[in-house]
Structure formats: C-alpha cells, structure tokens
C-alpha cells in the first residue's frame, strides 16, 4: 500500500464524492433532488480544482456553476412547473431522509475545507504551485482576446435565444405597435 500524502488523500476523497453525486444525478427520480446532488457534485469538483492548484477556477466553479447556472435550473423548475410530471408519481416523503445524502456529502466536503484551513503545512504545500488569477487574466486578454470576443457573442446569442423561446405565445403583437412610422418619427 502506497502512503498517500494528505493532499492526494483529500483529492481522491473529493473525486469519489463527485462520482457518487454524479451517479445520483443521473439515476434520480425527482428533479429537485437530482439538482441538489448536482450542486454537491460541482462543489466536490471545486475542491478537486483547489487541490490541483487552481484556486481561481475553484472559485469560478462555485460562483458561476453552483451559484448561477444551477440557480437558473432551480428557477426554471420551480416557476414553470417542469418537475411536475414526475413528482406526481413520486411518493410523498415529508421526512428528513431526502436531505440525508446531499448533506452527508456536503458535510464531508466541509470537513475537508476545515482540515485545509487548520493545517498550516498543507497550505504551504498547496500555495507553492498555484496558477494565480493574474496569470489567467493576462493570458485571457492577451493571446486569447479573440476567444473572449467570440464567447461574448455566444452569451449574447444565448440571451436572445432564451428570451425568444421562453416568452409566451402571441406576445409578438406589441412589437408591431411600436414600429416607428416614418411621418411621426424624428425628421432625418
């Protein structure tokens, strides 16, 4: 048996948690529960990123993925009743055990976080080979500037497509009311 360093040990634990949570995502019956497991899986992957020496990516993973994209999922499910057709058939469990799985995984991840903060030697080892956000930023706005522009176009396209597809049917009429007519518009 090879002796694992604490960093390796924590990485494998977080990787195992990510795999277990992802398996629970795709085998879930209730969409909100699956979403909860997906959040926990992304948090576990963020811990992996941190241990790999990419704290900036770990922060982005938590803020953008788990914080923004998954909240978008929650909004869509809750506001438009997307989870209705399966929660009708699911048994109505009003007990705590639906929270048990995600909370267990999240508590283990929290224990890892506390362990890293507590141990100074581990932090010394982790901060020795990180890639800082400054390096990423100079690269992003240097050689990859065109890719950033293309990504912004992609986000704009996503915004317009999301607005267009999600609006209710028959809301196109108000657009025609505000068509500028030539004789009333500003004189050009």
């Amino acid at each position, binding site marked *: 048996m090879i002796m694992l360093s604490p960093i390796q040990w924590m990485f494998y634990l977080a990787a195992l948690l990510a795999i277990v949570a992802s398996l629970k995502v795709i085998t879930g019956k209730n969409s909100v529960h699956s979403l909860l497991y997906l959040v926990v899986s992304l948090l576990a992957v963020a811990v992996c990123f941190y241990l790999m020496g990419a704290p900036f*990516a770990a922060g982005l993973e938590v803020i953008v993925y788990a914080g923004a994209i998954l909240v978008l*999922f929650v909004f869509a499910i809750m506001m438009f009743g997307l989870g209705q*057709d399966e929660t009708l058939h699911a048994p109505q469990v009003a007990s705590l055990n639906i929270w048990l799985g995600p909370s267990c995984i999240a508590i283990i991840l929290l224990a890892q976080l506390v362990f890293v903060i507590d141990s100074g030697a581990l932090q010394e080892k982790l901060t020795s080979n990180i890639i800082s956000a400054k390096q990423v930023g100079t690269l992003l706005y240097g050689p990859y500037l065109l890719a950033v522009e293309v990504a912004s176009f992609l986000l704009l396209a996503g915004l317009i497509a999301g607005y267009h597809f*999600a609006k209710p049917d028959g809301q196109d009429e108000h657009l025609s009311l505000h068509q500028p007519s030539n004789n009333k518009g500003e004189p050009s």
Partner: protein
Amino acid sequence: MSAIPLSHILMLASILFVIGFVGVIVRKNTLYILMSLEVMLNAVGIAFIGAGSAWQQADGQVMFILILTLAAAEVAVGLALLIQMQRRFKSLDIDLLSKLKG
C-alpha cells in the same frame, strides 16, 4: 508539478464524462439530459485544469472559463426550450419531439 498525477485526474475526468454520457443516452426526461450535459462539460473542465496544472500553464484555466460561458449559454437556451416544450406538450418526454422525423 502538483501532488496529484495527471493520469488520475484524467481518469476522474473520463469517469465523470462517461457518467454524464450515460445520463444523456439513458434518460428520457429532457431536464435530466440537460443536467447530464452539465456533468459532461464539467468533466471536460477537469481535464483542462488538470493538464494546465501539470504543465504549470494558465491556458487550462482560460479554456475552463470559455467552457463556463458555453455552459451558461447552453443552459439558457436549453431551459427556454424546455419551458416551450412544457407549454406545448405538457410533458418533458424527449420522444414527443420526434415529429420532425421523416
């Protein structure tokens, strides 16, 4: 060089990718297909970050940020399509979308 060997990171990435792929193939609910797509994109991000940290280059994280924007745009369009689908078919079964089949 970080403490974790690159091969293990790539193994983790491929396992997560396969899990997401199986989810996309197996599930019939379109919402689950979107969530499995998220898992797949995330696995690709792990591979990029792992390779970037193995060679001590920041390019991996740049690619991860681009994947992040792609995932955000994809989720926005996908969820809007899901809302339309719920409105028209009152269900999220992806087999209902087979009307374009010739």
